[in-house]
Structures are given as structure tokens and as C-alpha cells.
């Protein structure tokens, strides 16, 4: 029991809320500042308990039930159940209660289990020990007892228990290294800095004397932002105020590395830590299938209501005759008679609702959930999507969107790291127009003797020499690369061999590493940062030391970074490196034209370019800069804005030094993938922050633009010449001319013979297009822009800010066709678009895991997108489409006979089927086959799907869930129901059908209908199944057998504890009658006949591409699926030839598709051979690499 605890306790109950508003004051070690300063107002902060669980033991049942019944479907079934309990119901409440109970229980168990796991994880975290300094001693406590203001001791490799402000470290310079791998996936070591004035407090005793308060903002989820101020009270009264930034904050979840220990003070605890704030769940995405499912549901709800209404009305019309309402043999009870007619009518209406409620199947939701959940395993299991390099396969973060993968129309892809490897190689640099190329680069490995410089241009004069060296030094100094030295390293990133040991560079930006390494090869080696001095080994093997004064960090808005250094001779330099667009406007001298020409040349080659500039600072200037930065950094409000302003003021009047070029190679099979996606009818947009020329080159390389593509530019350059309005209209006219001559070809991406358009737009122009105008013509601009985009097969948006990417996605998403969008990216800058798009895919890239964590699906490489969409997406879509349609169909079949029966039983709500059948129909008799179908159905072999991207068009635009098809299924259900009912009706009509003359009753009638029903719907599914594995056989025949066995058992004995025995021997008696058998067979045949005929006819007369491929595949007995280029080429020849004169009655369209189909096969052959070429290249590379490393 110590003082602190009591004080905390008191503070918990005595504090006012006024200090909560936007900043908090933390008293380090809970020590009051010296008197005279502001009053000590203890604030109440939550403890450090992490609660990720949703429920507690006590509130699980009510809370979980509440959550579950918030779902509209569950609520509906609850209402039905309650209605059944209240009114005199035609079916026992069990029939809807049991399935509902089943569904609720299963969900509750699943959620309960998940929550239990969370509890366990929470407990493990909350109880792990932390070391707290109290009264100069180290005390061990459980993590959850940690309070804001506690001083914590964290040792190496420990994880920070909460968000901390770094006070001091074991290192003299007050730095520590941290990896945030579990936070954002970046495993690089980041440097954090202790507060300068406290870094000397290095022991527990010293810390006990520290009196300081921290003022900081209230917790915010942004991991990289922090604004605060520390006030240190020393003997003198005036406290020293120091700014605190994100470089002082150690985040919960990060791990201390390479530092023996640190002392830090807790500022945000428990659920207020940035990690906890970041765990808030994303908004739920719903798939298009789910939307159509809900639409169908509403239709069925209307059908249900109208059925109930019709029956109620007819009932009262029919009952107008009292002898019908109440014949002598069937009198009502007294209480029934006395009920008001309106109440009776209403009860009847409800009773009909209850009777027909099965038309909305409760089990559909469960089945769909299960299908999605289980089905998503096939993605994670997929071996082809496993990447050996990363050692990981695809990840599914939300299984709700599986089928959406088969519906994608627009793909928005990031360039760097997604299309390209993000594996940078320094290619060349250009100083004052002279080009330097370090020779012999082999796949990131450097030949040992690569110290020399190849100069393409003539060697510079003495003046040039000076500039050249300054340029190299600038690149060596202007970065945030760290040096990691290690003895036993066999090459991470760019392992570089030196005489003594191995050291390598790490940075969050691969460009920087590439540059620093490039410099090394050009003779200037960056050694390390020591005591705020950067050491460089120059060409003469001398060590030069520069004092690092300021770092103006990189951000994506400025697109540049700067450092201020003091050279050994005392000169102050400001070096700046950044995108050409952000450097050139700030340059006042230097050979701008030559450099610009080179930069543009390089950009066209697809290289990433950076420009380097510098300026010499006088001491006074430096003082001003310091002042400027200091005030900006100290600001509590709007610090970012002020910093940006300060940077803007500092980074000007540069002297241009030169430019660099770094290559980012295309990812493996990126071009092939993009080609396939194009052929599949998807429009691929590249959204990148890169320069237009670089991005365009990548687009050409990745076959996004072909040579034949006519490029439309919508860039600042053009809008400078003309105004935006004219440019837009110009472009739309160009596009629409072609469009008008075309006879409505929806698959414009496919039309090869027509002009293919590609659009390039840059960020600035996009802003102009999107900008709301005063005269309100903005909608117009947007519309024109969309119209242009719609007619372009590929669009490249360059110079995009992260938010603009999301904007573009949103623009397309909400355009009038509401296309399904997919965003794919690997970096943190893609997160916004990944979250915005219908389907977000993250690449487990080099820039950390943020994209992968925020995505719906994560894949290791861009090439895996092909299988993800073309195979998995396609399969999931057809599976779930059939699942949804089939469910509605089988419930129409199920319920419609009951509806018809009402006309023959005086609208008395007499159920046709027995309770057990009503209950189990959806749960067990017909549930497993469709679930299995929806898990493993493959209408076409996956190899064909992959080779023939055009098949994807067959399912585009939610084509299997169109209203036409839905209505077809519904009518099929109604037809089948009519067949069942009237078949049985005519069989039963006033005659016997047993050989002993005995009669059957109403339950036999129902059982006969039900038997036909179960067999028909199961066999219908069997006819739809194209992929019969042993599991299918087992489940389909098994569930039929189960029905028979169950029926035998259910009617086989007198069931105790049951107040009716109406099913006793009914099933057996029915089976003992020959005509019943004949009738069952006949009715099943008749029910299945129309569907089979329709299918066969459609296949013969109007086959879809899918069906043609199926036919062909069958003819080849699966050989098509194997990789036999010869045979497929053969086939394609013949097919292509025949396709021309095939089916002249059909429009040109399908035959074109067919051609494409096989062209696809041929093309694949080509890529195969070309990939062979690649392979050869690769091996050459690796051979070279071997040579060098040995």
C-alpha cells in the first residue's frame, strides 16, 4: 500500500472532467511540481488493461443475443417464433424455434470461443510483468496495473507495455532502436530520441529526483503523429520547456532493440494507446451478391405477405357461409367464437405468415456464412499463391467478399512495390549534365573492383570536379539510412562486403539505400552516424566528418527531404533531395536544363529520378532556421502546418547539383497478369505517386499500354496550353467518335480492331476536374471525365497523393454503373484506397504490412492476383450464385404446395407436411449437398480458367444473379411445386392406390409431396453439379438416404412424450404401394424435365463461352487442362477458322469471344516461352551473382 495508489484512488473519484478536453498533463513519477506553478490537478486516466474481448462472463448471453438479433434475418425469425408462441399456430413453435435456436447457438458458440481466445490473449498481455521505478527502486508489477505517469524500465527485446515518452537510455547519446514490426510491419530499426534534458537521468535514484510534467494531446490513433511538451523543473523556479514529437514516443507493441535499457514515462495507457486505438474495426464491406440476396429476400418477403394476405381474404370470403365456417362436425370453441372478427382475421394473417415463413430460409444465412468462412480456406491453402521468398501464402482477412473477387470491373493498382519489385538499383547519376554509371551491377551484388567510375560524357573540368564531389557528399549525407554492422550476415538487402566486417544499410525507403549504396560504388562510403557526426569514407580513403545539425524529414506532400550539416571546415550546408517537380521550382542556379533533360530521359526509361540541390548557409541564416524550426516544433497546436511552413521557408534558393536514377524492376509476370486482367474485361488503372514519364514507361512495360494504344493526356502541361474545359471536351470527342461508330460493344477493352485508348492524368489536373466549381459545372466535368475513362482500356494516374487515390476509387465506385472496384497496393499510402474500394488487396511487400493488414485479402505478389480473381473469384461467384438461387428455389418448392393446399382445406392453415419435415427440411435434408456444392463446385477446370481470362466476362455484372435468372428459378420452383402438389392430388383424388383397398390420409399426401420434393431438389442440384468428387456422391446420395432412414425411423415407432402420432407408419405404408412409387418417379421426372431441356437447348443453341469450353474440354477428356501447347494450338487453329462461319445467326460477338478464348491459349504458350527466356536471364544473373559473392 503506497501513497501513489491511494492518491490514484482518490484522484479517480475526485477529478473533474474539465481537463479532459484536448490536452493532458502527466506528472512524471506522480510527483508534484514545485509549488508556485500551476495547481496540481490530478487527472483520471484508465489503467493499462487491454480489453479486446467483447463480452464478459456475465454479459455474454444478453449482449450476444442482442448482437445476434440485431441482424435483420435473425430478428425476423425471432418474430415468427414469438408469433407462433402467442397465436394458435398451424405449426408447432419448434419448427421455427429449433432452427433459430440452432443458428443462434452455433453463432454464439463461435463468438464465445473467439472471445475466450481474446480473453486469454488479453490476460496474457495484462499480466506480463513490467518494471516500474518507485521511490528510487525498481518494482515489478503486472502490466495492467501500470498508470499514466509511472516511470517504466524496459530492457532489450522487451515490448513496450504502453505508450511512453523516452526519458533516458543506456546509450550516451540518448537514442534507442526500436522495431515496430507488430505495429505496422516495418521491421527496420527506427531510432528514437530521449528528451535532451533528461537523458542524463540514468539510474533509478537520479530519476527519482526528476520533477517534470508532460503536456500532450489526448490520445489519437495516428501512429506517426504526436505533439507534446515537457516541462522540467529544476532548482530554479522557471521550468524548462522542451518539445516532444513522435521521435520521443515509444509505442505500445513496439520492441526495444540494440539498447540495453531505457527509462520512459507512461503517457497513454490501456485502451488509449495508439495501438489499441488502431484496432478499431473497419467498416463492413458488403458484396454485390449479398445486396442482390437482400433484394431477392425483399421480393420473397412481399410474396410471403401477399400469399398470407390472399389466403386471409379468401378464407373470409369462403367462410361467409356459416356452414363452411363452422359445420356441425367441426365447431369452434366458445372463446374462439367470441373473438372479434378483426382480431381473428389478424391472427389468421399471422398464422398464414407462420405457415409460409419457411419461404425465407433461416438456414440460407448460416449456409452462406459457412460457405464463405470455409471457402476462404481454399485461398489460404492455395499452393500456387504461396511465395517461397516471403514464406507466406495468401491471407484472407474478411471472408465476406470471396464472391466479389469474381465481379471486379475496375482494378486500381499501385505501381511501386505492386507492379514493380520495389527492389531498387542505383543506375546512374548525373552531375551538371555529366552522367556517371557505376559498372558491373549484378542483381544487387557489386563486383569487388567496382570502385571506378565510367563516365559516359566527357570528363568534367576542375569546376565540375568540385561539384561532382559535393554531389556525392550530398547523397551520402542527405538520407535517414542507418548502418547495421554484423559479423555473420549472409546478405540482407544489399549486403556489402568490406575488408573488416559486414555492414549494411537499413532504411524505411529502399530508394535511399540504393542511393547510398550507389554512392559507395562511386567511391563515397557512408560509414555511420556517431555523436551526431556523419562519417564518410571518401575516394582517398579519408574519413570526413560532418556534424548533423537538422533533418527536415521526408513527407509525401513536400516530396523532398533536407539535412543541414556542418563540414569539418565549418561550412554550413543544406542538402536537399527530392522529386524533380519539388526541386526545380526552388532552384536558382545550376545547370537546370541539362539535368532536366537527363531526368526526363531517365523517366521515359522507367527509372525513378531524384534531384539533388544544396545551398550554403551563413551562420546567421542557420540561426534563423534554427529559430524557425524551434518555434514550429514547440507549437502544440497545428504543429504540422507550422512545420510545413517552416520547411517551405527554409528549402528555397537552391543550387542544383544533379539527379539520380534508380531502377525498380517489374514484378515477375506483372505484364502477363495485366494482360489477362484486360482480357477478362477488367479495366486496370495505375495510381502512382511517380512521375508521369516513369509511370508511363512502367505501363508500357507491363503491357497496360500497348504500342497501338492511343495515349490521351490530361496533364498540367496540356491544361497550361488550353483550359481544362477545352481539353476535356476535346478528349471526349476523340473518344466518342470511335464510340459512336461502334455498335454498342460493352466490352470495349476487348475490341482489338478498334482504337485502343489509354488516358494519363496527373494529380493536379485531377484536383481541377474534381474541384467544385462556383458555377456548378463541376458535375459536368466529372461526368465528361468519367465518360472518357469509361472508354479507355487503361488509365494511368500519376502524381497522386494517397487521398487522391481513394478519391479516384470513390469517383468510379459511385459512378452511374456502380462498378465493382478492386484496389491493390503494398504501402501505407495505398491503405486509403484499399479501404475505399469494394475489394482491397494488400501485397505483403517490402514497405511494411500496413496495406496487408488493412486489406480484405493479402497476397505475396502481384501475379497472384490472376489466380485470385480468375480462378478463386470465378469459382466463388458461381458457387454462391447457385447457392443463393438454389436456396430460394428449394424453398419455393417447399412452401408453394402448402399454399396450394390451403385452397383444398378451407384456408384453415393446415400444414401439408409433418412438423419434423418442416423443421428438418432446411436444416438437414437439403442443407449439406448445397453447402458442399458451394464449396467445391468447379464448372470448368481451373487451368482453363487461368488460361482463358475471357471466361471471366461470362459472370461479369453479377450475371448469374440477374432478375431474369432469379425469376426463372422462382418460376421453376413454382412449376415444380405445382407438379408435386397436383401430381399427388390426382393420385389421391377420390380413389385408393393400395392393393388392399385401404385409404391414405392427409399425412400420406403430405409425405408423398415431401418425398418428391426432397428427391427433386436434391437431384436438381445433382444435375447442376459439374464436379463430382467422392464427397459429392457421398453427400448427395447420403442425404437422400438420410431422408429415407429418418422417415422410416420417425414413422417406425410410437414416440413417447409426443402428443401426436400422426406419422406412424405413414411412410412405410406409402412405400408399400406401387402407384406411390410410380407417382414419385413420374413427378420427379416431370419436375426435372423442363430445367434439363432448357439447359440442353440453351447449350446447343446459344452456348456461352463457358459452355463451349466445357464441351471442348469434355471432348479432349481433360487434356485441354494439361499444358499441351501443341494440342491447344491445333485446336485454336481449327476453332478460329471454324468460328468465322459458325452460327451465322448469332451475332458476331460470341464468335469473337471464341477466337479470343483460343488466342488466349496461344498467347500463353508465348508467355511460357518468354518466361523461359526470363528464366535464362535469371540464371545468368544468379550465375553472375555467384561469381561476385565468392
Amino acid at each position: 500500500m503506497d501513497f501513489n495508489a491511494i492518491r490514484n484512488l482518490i484522484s479517480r473519484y475526485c477529478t473533474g472532467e474539465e481537463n479532459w478536453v484536448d490536452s493532458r498533463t502527466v506528472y512524471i513519477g506522480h510527483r508534484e511540481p514545485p509549488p508556485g506553478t500551476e495547481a496540481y490537478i490530478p487527472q483520471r486516466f484508465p489503467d493499462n488493461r487491454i480489453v479486446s474481448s467483447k463480452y464478459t462472463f456475465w454479459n455474454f448471453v444478453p449482449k450476444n443475443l442482442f448482437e445476434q438479433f440485431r441482424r435483420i434475418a435473425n430478428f425476423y425469425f425471432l418474430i415468427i417464433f414469438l408469433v407462433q408462441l402467442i397465436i394458435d399456430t398451424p405449426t408447432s413453435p419448434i419448427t421455427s424455434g429449433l432452427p433459430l435456436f440452432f443458428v443462434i447457438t452455433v453463432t454464439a458458440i463461435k463468438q464465445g470461443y473467439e472471445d475466450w481466445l481474446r480473453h486469454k490473449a488479453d490476460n496474457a498481455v495484462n499480466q506480463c510483468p513490467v518494471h516500474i521505478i518507485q521511490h528510487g527502486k525498481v518494482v515489478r508489477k503486472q502490466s495492467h496495473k501500470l498508470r499514466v505517469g509511472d516511470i517504466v524500465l524496459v530492457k532489450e527485446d522487451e515490448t513496450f507495455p504502453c505508450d511512453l515518452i523516452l526519458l533516458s537510455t543506456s546509450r550516451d547519446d540518448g537514442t534507442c532502436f526500436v522495431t515496430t514490426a507488430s505495429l505496422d510491419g516495418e521491421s527496420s530499426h527506427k531510432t528514437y530520441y530521449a528528451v535532451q534534458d533528461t537523458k542524463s537521468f540514468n539510474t533509478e535514484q537520479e530519476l527519482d529526483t526528476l520533477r517534470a510534467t508532460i503536456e500532450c494531446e489526448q490520445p489519437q490513433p495516428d501512429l506517426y503523429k504526436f505533439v507534446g511538451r515537457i516541462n522540467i523543473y529544476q532548482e530554479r523556479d522557471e521550468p524548462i520547456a522542451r518539445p516532444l514529437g513522435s521521435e520521443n514516443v515509444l509505442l505500445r507493441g513496439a520492441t526495444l532493440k540494440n539498447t540495453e535499457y531505457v527509462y520512459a514515462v507512461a503517457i497513454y495507457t490501456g485502451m488509449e494507446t495508439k495501438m489499441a486505438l488502431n484496432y478499431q474495426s473497419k467498416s463492413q464491406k458488403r458484396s454485390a451478391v449479398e445486396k442482390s440476396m437482400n433484394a431477392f429476400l425483399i421480393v420473397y418477403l412481399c410474396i410471403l405477405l401477399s400469399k398470407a394476405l390472399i389466403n386471409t381474404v379468401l378464407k373470409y370470403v369462403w367462410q361467409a357461409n356459416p356452414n363452411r365456417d363452422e359445420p356441425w362436425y367441426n365447431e369452434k370453441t366458445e372463446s374462439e367464437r367470441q373473438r372479434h372478427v378483426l382480431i381473428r382475421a389478424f391472427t389468421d394473417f399471422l398464422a398464414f405468415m407462420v405457415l409460409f415463413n419457411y419461404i425465407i430460409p433461416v438456414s440460407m444465412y448460416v449456409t452462406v456464412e459457412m460457405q464463405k468462412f470455409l471457402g476462404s480456406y481454399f485461398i489460404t491453402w492455395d499452393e500456387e499463391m504461396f511465395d517461397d521468398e516471403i514464406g507466406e501464402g495468401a491471407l484472407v482477412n474478411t471472408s465476406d467478399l470471396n464472391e466479389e473477387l469474381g465481379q471486379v470491373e475496375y482494378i486500381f493498382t499501385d505501381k511501386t512495390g505492386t507492379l514493380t519489385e520495389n527492389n531498387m538499383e542505383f543506375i546512374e547519376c548525373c552531375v551538371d549534365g555529366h552522367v556517371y554509371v557505376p559498372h558491373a551491377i549484378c542483381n544487387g551484388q557489386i563486383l569487388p573492383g567496382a570502385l571506378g567510375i565510367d563516365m559516359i560524357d566527357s570528363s568534367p573540368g576542375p569546376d565540375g570536379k568540385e561539384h561532382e564531389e559535393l554531389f556525392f557528399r550530398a547523397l551520402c549525407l542527405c538520407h535517414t539510412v542507418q548502418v547495421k554492422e554484423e559479423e555473420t550476415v549472409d546478405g540482407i538487402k544489399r549486403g556489402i562486403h568490406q575488408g573488416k566486417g559486414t555492414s549494411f544499410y537499413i532504411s524505411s525507403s529502399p530508394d535511399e539505400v540504393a542511393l547510398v549504396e550507389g554512392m559507395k560504388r562511386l567511391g563515397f562510403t557512408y560509414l555511420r552516424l556517431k555523436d551526431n557526426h556523419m562519417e564518410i569514407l571518401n575516394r582517398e580513403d579519408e574519413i570526413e566528418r560532418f556534424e548533423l545539425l537538422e533533418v527536415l524529414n521526408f513527407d509525401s506532400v513536400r516530396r523532398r527531404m533536407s539535412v543541414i550539416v556542418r563540414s569539418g571546415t565549418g561550412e554550413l550546408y543544406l542538402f536537399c533531395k527530392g522529386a524533380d517537380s519539388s526541386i526545380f521550382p526552388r532552384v536558382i542556379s545550376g545547370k537546370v536544363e541539362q539535368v532536366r533533360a537527363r531526368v526526363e530521359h531517365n523517366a521515359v526509361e522507367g527509372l525513378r529520378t531524384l534531384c539533388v540541390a544544396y545551398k550554403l548557409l551563413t551562420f546567421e541564416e542557420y540561426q534563423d532556421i534554427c529559430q524557425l524550426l524551434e518555434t514550429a516544433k514547440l507549437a502544440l497546436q497545428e504543429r504540422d502546418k507550422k512545420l510545413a511552413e517552416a520547411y517551405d521557408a527554409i528549402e528555397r534558393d537552391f543550387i542544383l547539383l544533379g539527379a539520380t536514377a534508380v531502377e525498380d524492376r517489374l514484378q515477375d509476370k506483372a505484364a502477363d497478369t495485366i494482360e489477362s486482367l484486360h482480357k477478362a474485361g477488367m479495366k486496370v488503372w495505375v495510381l502512382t505517386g511517380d512521375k508521369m514519364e516513369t509511370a508511363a514507361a512502367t505501363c508500357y512495360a507491363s503491357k497496360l499500354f500497348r504500342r497501338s494504344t492511343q495515349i490521351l493526356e490530361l496533364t498540367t502541361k496540356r491544361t497550361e496550353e488550353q483550359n481544362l474545359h477545352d481539353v476535356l471536351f476535346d478528349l471526349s470527342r476523340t473518344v466518342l467518335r470511335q464510340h459512336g461508330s461502334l455498335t454498342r460493344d460493352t466490352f470495349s477493352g476487348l475490341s482489338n480492331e478498334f482504337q485502343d485508348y489509354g488516358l494519363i492524368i496527373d494529380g493536379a489536373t485531377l484536383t481541377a476536374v474534381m474541384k467544385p466549381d462556383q458555377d456548378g459545372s463541376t458535375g459536368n466535368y466529372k461526368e465528361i471525365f468519367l465518360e472518357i475513362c469509361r472508354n479507355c482500356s487503361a488509365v494511368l494516374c500519376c502524381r497522386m497523393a494517397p487521398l487522391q487515390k481513394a478519391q479516384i476509387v470513390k469517383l468510379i465506385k459511385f459512378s452511374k454503373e456502380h462498378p465493382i472496384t478492386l484496389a491493390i497496393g503494398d504501402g501505407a499510402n495505398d491503405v486509403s484506397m484499399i479501404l475505399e474500394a469494394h475489394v482491397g488487396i494488400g501485397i505483403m511487400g517490402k514497405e511494411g504490412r500496413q496495406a496487408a493488414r488493412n486489406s480484405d485479402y493479402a497476397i505475396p505478389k502481384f501475379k497472384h492476383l490472376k489466380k485470385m480473381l480468375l480462378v478463386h473469384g470465378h469459382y466463388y461467384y458461381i458457387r454462391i450464385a447457385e447457392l443463393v438461387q438454389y436456396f430460394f428455389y428449394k424453398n419455393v418448392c417447399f412452401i408453394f404446395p402448402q399454399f396450394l393446399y390451403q385452397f383444398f382445406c378451407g384456408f384453415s392453415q393446415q400444414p401439408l407436411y409433418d412438423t419434423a419435415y418442416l423443421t428438418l427440411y432446411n436444416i438437414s435434408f437439403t442443407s449439406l449437398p448445397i453447402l458442399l456444392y458451394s464449396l467445391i463446385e468447379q464448372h470448368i477446370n481451373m487451368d482453363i480458367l487461368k488460361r482463358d481470362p475471357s471466361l471471366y466476362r461470362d459472370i461479369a455484372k453479377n450475371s448469374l444473379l440477374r432478375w431474369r435468372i432469379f425469376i426463372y428459378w422462382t418460376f421453376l420452383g413454382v412449376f415444380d411445386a405445382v407438379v408435386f402438389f397436383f401430381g399427388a392430388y390426382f393420385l389421391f383424388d377420390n380413389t385408393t392406390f393400395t392393393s388392399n383397398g385401404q385409404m391414405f390420409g392427409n399425412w400420406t399426401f403430405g409425405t408423398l409431396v415431401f418425398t418428391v420434393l426432397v428427391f427433386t431438389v436434391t437431384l436438381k442440384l445433382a444435375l447442376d453439379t459439374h464436379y463430382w468428387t467422392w464427397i459429392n456422391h457421398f453427400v448427395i446420395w447420403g442425404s437422400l438416404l438420410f431422408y429415407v432412414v429418418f422417415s422410416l425411423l420417425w414413422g417406425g415407432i410410437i414416440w413417447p412424450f409426443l402428443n401426436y402420432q400422426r406419422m406412424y407408419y405413414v411412410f412405410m405404408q406409402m412405400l408399400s404401394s406401387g402407384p406411390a412409387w410410380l407417382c414419385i418417379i413420374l413427378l420427379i421426372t416431370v419436375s426435372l424435365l423442363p430445367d434439363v431441356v432448357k439447359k440442353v437447348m440453351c447449350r446447343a443453341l446459344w452456348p456461352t463461352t463457358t459452355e463451349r469450353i466445357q464441351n471442348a474440354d469434355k471432348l479432349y477428356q481433360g487434356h485441354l487442362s494439361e499444358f499441351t501447347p501443341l494440342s491447344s494450338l491445333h485446336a485454336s487453329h481449327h476453332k478460329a477458322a471454324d468460328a468465322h462461319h459458325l452460327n451465322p445467326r448469332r451475332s458476331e460477338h460470341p464468335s469473337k469471344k471464341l477466337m479470343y478464348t483460343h488466342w488466349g491459349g496461344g498467347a500463353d504458350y508465348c508467355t511460357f516461352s518468354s518466361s523461359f527466356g526470363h528464366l535464362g536471364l535469371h540464371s545468368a544473373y544468379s550465375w553472375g551473382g555467384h561469381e561476385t559473392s565468392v
Partner: protein
Amino acid sequence: MMASSYNAKEEDGHHSVSAASGPSAGPSAKSKKPDNTAFKQQRLPAWQPILTAGTVLPAFFIIGLIFIPIGIGLFVTSNNIREFEVDYTGVDASSPCFTCSQTYSWNSSIPCKCAVSFSLEQPFESNVFMYYGLSNFYQNHRRYVKSRDDSQLNGDKASLRNPSKECEPYRSHDNKPIAPCGAIANSLFNDTLELFYIDPNGTRTQIPLVKKGIAWWTDKHVKFRNPGGNNFNLTVVFQGTTKPVNWRKYVYELDTDPENNGFVNEDFIVWMRTAALPTFRKLYRIIQKKSNMTPTLPRGNYTLDVTYNYPVRSFEGRKRMILSTISWMGGKNPFLGIAYITVGSVCFFLGVVLLIIHHKYGNRNNSADIPN
């Protein structure tokens, strides 16, 4: 100090290097690598049937070829069945039961009798089954169907004394529980039908009607049981209960034969199996074939003596007496035969259509598909 563990990324780098220099993947990668099983890779061996005109064609012809003979067989069988129906409701003033139907009252102690005469044009050769048929009688009305207590009928003593609530308003009378309770039992068909053959010389011979074997065996022996097991003194067993309000006698007075009395009375059991449709017939008696030589019911004139107890005119119902012979497929029902013939012909026709289509289009498709 610097030589601390360097995690995932390091391995990545390692892998990229090793992957570049050779195809061997690191051992750590294998652990995470998904299993290469046919199921997980969705490559289970499978039969992949496709419904094409070619494959379905034979099926259609086969169905046609099987269904048409079956249909013809059924149709012929159905046509060979003799069936005779006579309506004795007495709606017309001319009909013999008109008076009975008019002067009906539940409480009259003297039963009203009427005789309907008819003649059979053709002899009924084999066993003849005698049915009574009711029309417009909603035995399948929900209120009616559930108005019974199966455990009472199964001989449960507790239910006998305290019948299920479902039996309301036929649950108790005069504070005594009704046995058998419920609307179905209450409305038991209680006309008595007797059949007489009128010889050409004018003598009436009563035709023996067998009343056993008209109910399901399982119903009679398992589902329906008298309370008290094999206690034949049903009067004692049913003590404390009362008869259904519309009944003239107690349930234990239904028959003199103890095997056919009480709840196991076959007429009662037959009635208790509620019909599916409002027009229905129920098996009443069986006329056994006497010998191979003479037909069971020879050609000639007959009289049906009706003890007219059952009122149907209030709900516009009809009462019929049906005589029918039975084949293996039951009574006369042309539906199945016609349906089979129709479906068979349709299938055959579709088969022909498909054959044409297959020939015209399928061949082209195939020729496009097959390279040679």
C-alpha cells in the same frame, strides 16, 4: 550488442538470395507452406458430366421407351377395374333417401332408413371393396385434424381421464371426459350400409360384408389400443367417461366383437385417418370372393339399404356408396396411366427434337472442336 536477433526481414533477404541462386527454399518456409493435398488444392479427382444434347438424348429416349409401356399398362389396368358409384344423399325429391335427408335430427331415436336400388351392368369378378364417399367434407380442416388425442387412442389411462386440450370443444361433456375425444371422433360416419342382391326371380339375398381388414394393420394393432390392455370388459375400463355428443352409443358398444370394439373398432380407425382432400372415400366393407366359379357381384339388380344417420346437406355435402374391384395399383385411377403415357411421349418427342438440334448444331460445334 549489435548482434541481436534480426527477425523476419533478415530471413526474407536470405530467401531472396537463396531463391535466386537455386530453387531450394528454406526449411522455415516449408512449415508455412500449404499442404499439397488434392483436396486443399481443389484438385480432387472428379467426374465432370455435362448435360449436352448428345448425352441427354439417350436418356430421353430411354425414359420415353420405359414410360410409355408403363403408362399403357397402368391405363389398361385402370380400365379393367370395375367401379360403381351410387349417390344416396337424397338431394332430389325423387331419390329414395330424400325424406331421410329432410327429416334428419340427431336426437331422433328411430333411425331413418331408405333403400336405393341400382343395377350392375357387368359382373365384379374378384374381391369387391365397398367404400363410402363424402364430398365437401373438410376432414383436412386444421381445427378438425388436430382435434384428437393420440395418446388417449393409444390406451393411455391418464389421457382417457384428461384428454388433450386439442380436443376442445369436444373434450368433455357434463363434466365427464369424452372418450374418444375431439371433433374427428365426434363426427364418426354412422350410416349403416347393407347390400342386397335381387335375384331375377325377386328374392333378396344379403351380400356378406366383411368389416375386418379395412384399417391399416399397424393402426389397429399398435397405434390404437383400448385402455386397460386385454381387459375385455370395456364398460369398466371406460367408466367415468362419456360418449361423444353426436354418438348414439358408447365407444365400447361399437361392436359386439371384442377384437373390434372400443378404440380398435376398424370403422372408427378408418374414420380417424383424416382424408387429404374434401372429397374423399373411405373403405367400409370388403366383399370376399366366394369361389372362382361365380363372380363376387354378378350382373343384376341390387338394393342398398341405408340407415340414414349422417347429415351432410347442411354443408352441401354428398354421400356415396362405391363398389370397386382392386388391382395391384389400387382403385380406378386413369391419372397415372395417362400421365405416364404423356410424359413418355413428351420425352420421346423432346428426344427427337434434341436429336435434330444435336445433328444440326452439336455436330457443328463438335466439328469446330475436334481438330481432325
